[in-house]
């Protein structure tokens, strides 16, 4: 009779013991699967949360001021080239979600009457232009100082498109889709008067209004000139300022923002960005913003630590209990071992039978545990991670898309099963060897 048949007969004929062992294996497997699912779930949730929140770093230019003979003089405006930007983009790699550039200029138009500010005149009736890749990612829109009322934001593929304020649109009877001629301008103050530093106009652009915004929370200084008033602010794409000869193609004066997926990567990336030689670090600073992530990082970490501690405790306790039970069970089979030895069965055959019996029970217990954890994962997911969503007050973990954080991973489950199998086989080996290491006669003496 082969070991397979003996193993099956032993399990079938000793149903009580087999069922008890099955329940133990099932409980241990279910506990470990749940713990690992929670740990994986918290890791995945944390990753999703971080990605949703993201982080941003800015390369901000600042102009050096020098003082000579009691006179303060301003240095030249620092710029960043497209080549430097591409180096940074290469460093950020797959973590990059978006980047935004800013460049500033002025524009005026025969068809546009800007809302007058301090010292308004025909010459100074102009608006400030901020040329960007994404207008929605500028500070004023992110902080909701400005809100988009109609149309859409400026996007990277745009050419000669503009966003204007609702007040400016009303003043000039402009609507979405209207095209207006713009020309270049420069603002300076001379003898207390604001003047246009480019009186001879050589550059003209037909710009299309694609969006209208409302200046909700902005507060202008009472003595702001026309171009300094928020309502006269124009957002455009970079092409517009290049076409108006106020920007060199591929050269940026303003702050450049890089939006990344994982806030945990921020520090490491900043280290690498600081090493980019083509950026003039004498006149640029790196600024980071992961405030949102920092707010919830503690909660996330403590949740992951709790899950990890629970897993370690559960794994150690359950494996210890399992091994103890198996040892007791194996030692109670000394009589059987003695008989098998006396009828000429080899130690390997005896061990093989016991190992196979336990492995068969483990496999069935594990399969049931896996099936239940798959079926229950959605319910648990809702109760565990739904709470997290409310606690962090963000929409990152709301259902939709892949949100079942507790669904057991295939590879993890296979590894867990492999680990449990090894533990069971080692326990069977260790406990049986304690008996099998004895001389056959000693076993028979113990039997009787």
């Amino acid at each position: 009779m082969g070991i397979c048949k003996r193993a099956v007969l032993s399990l079938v004929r000793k149903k009580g013991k087999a069922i008890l062992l099955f329940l133990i294996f099932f409980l241990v497997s279910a506990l470990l699967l749940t713990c690992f699912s929670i740990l994986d779930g918290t890791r995945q949730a944390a990753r999703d949360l971080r990605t949703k929140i993201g982080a941003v770093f800015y390369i901000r230019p600042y102009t050096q001021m020098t003082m000579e003979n009691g006179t303060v003089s301003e240095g030249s405006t620092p710029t960043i080239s497209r080549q430097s930007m591409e180096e940074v983009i290469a460093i950020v790699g797959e973590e990059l979600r978006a980047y935004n550039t800013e460049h500033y200029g002025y524009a005026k138009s025969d068809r546009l009457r800007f809302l007058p500010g301090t010292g308004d005149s025909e010459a100074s009736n102009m608006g400030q232009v901020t040329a960007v890749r994404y207008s929605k990612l500028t500070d004023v829109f992110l902080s909701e100082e400005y809100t988009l009322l109609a149309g859409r934001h400026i996007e990277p593929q745009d050419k000669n498109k503009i966003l204007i304020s609702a007040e400016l649109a009303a003043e000039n009877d402009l609507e979405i889709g209207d095209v207006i001629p713009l020309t270049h301008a420069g603002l300076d103050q001379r003898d207390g008067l604001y003047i246009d530093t480019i009186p001879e106009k050589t550059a003209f652009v037909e710009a299309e209004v694609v969006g209208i915004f409302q200046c909700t929370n902005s507060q202008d200084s009472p003595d702001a000139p026309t171009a300094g008033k928020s309502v006269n602010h124009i957002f455009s794409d970079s092409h517009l300022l290049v076409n108006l000869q106020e920007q060199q193609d591929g050269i940026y004066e303003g702050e450049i923002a890089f939006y990344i997926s994982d806030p945990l990567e921020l520090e490491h990336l900043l280290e690498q960005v600081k090493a980019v030689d083509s950026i003039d670090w004498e006149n640029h600073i790196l600024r980071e913003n992961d405030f949102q992530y920092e707010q919830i990082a503690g909660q996330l970490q403590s949740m992951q630590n709790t899950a990890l501690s629970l897993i370690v405790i559960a794994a150690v306790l359950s494996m210890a209990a399992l091994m103890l039970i198996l040892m007791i069970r194996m030692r109670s089979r000394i009589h059987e071992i003695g008989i098998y030895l006396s009828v000429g069965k080899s130690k390997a055959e005896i061990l093989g039978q016991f190992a196979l019996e336990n492995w068969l029970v483990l496999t069935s217990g594990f399969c049931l545990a896996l099936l239940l954890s798959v079926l229950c994962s959605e319910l648990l997911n809702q109760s565990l991670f739904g709470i997290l969503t409310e606690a962090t007050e963000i929409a990152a973990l709301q259902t939709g898309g892949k949100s079942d954080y507790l669904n057991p991973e295939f590879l993890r489950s296979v590894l867990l099963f492999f680990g449990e199998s090894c533990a069971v086989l080692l326990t069977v080996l260790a406990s049986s060897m304690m008996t099998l290491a004895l001389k056959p006669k000693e076993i028979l003496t113990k039997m009787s």
Partner: protein
Amino acid sequence: MNLLEFYDLKYSYNGQQNILRGVSGKLEQGKLYAILGPSGCGKTTLLSLLGGLDIPTSGQILFNGKDIRKTGLAAHRRNHVSFIFQSYNLIDYLTPMENVALTSKLPPLPVLERLGLTKEESKRNVLKLSGGQQQRVAIARALASEAPVILADEPTGNLDEDTAWDIAKILKESAHQMNKCVVAVTHSNELAKQADLVFRLKKGELIMQ
């Protein structure tokens, strides 16, 4: 021809208590041997040594002229000898047929029927059989194996007189009809009466009667 020979076997516990003091003998196929002696005289120890369950302190055991320690004790147990114990030592979750099948690939029912078990009894759990029936199953298991030597340790010790007599007869028939070398350690005079040769183990020495 001598199947099993043993020369000058000595056995002691912890090098102090001498259980066997130079025991020698030659056993042939087709004979039933009985070894008698008081409790603690070393009968079971001698049987264990002959069956390769233990190693003598000194001396030599030959099977078909070959030293069993050189051919391997596990192989000796597997191929040359089979055991019958006083407490039957059957696997409790198997039927008589399955217990017999542990040692033989041949159909177990004819052996069991020859020893008096019905077909229905042969398919019952062994724990549901009487002591005598369980010992018959143990004998059937020993007979079914191809091992030419059967070592029986007090095979009738737990049985009533009538059953013991039956078992003794079965062992004798097995030796004679199946050409087995049966060595039975016993207190039973009935069994000794059935034996072809009787040895007495006294003060660690084996004396032929």
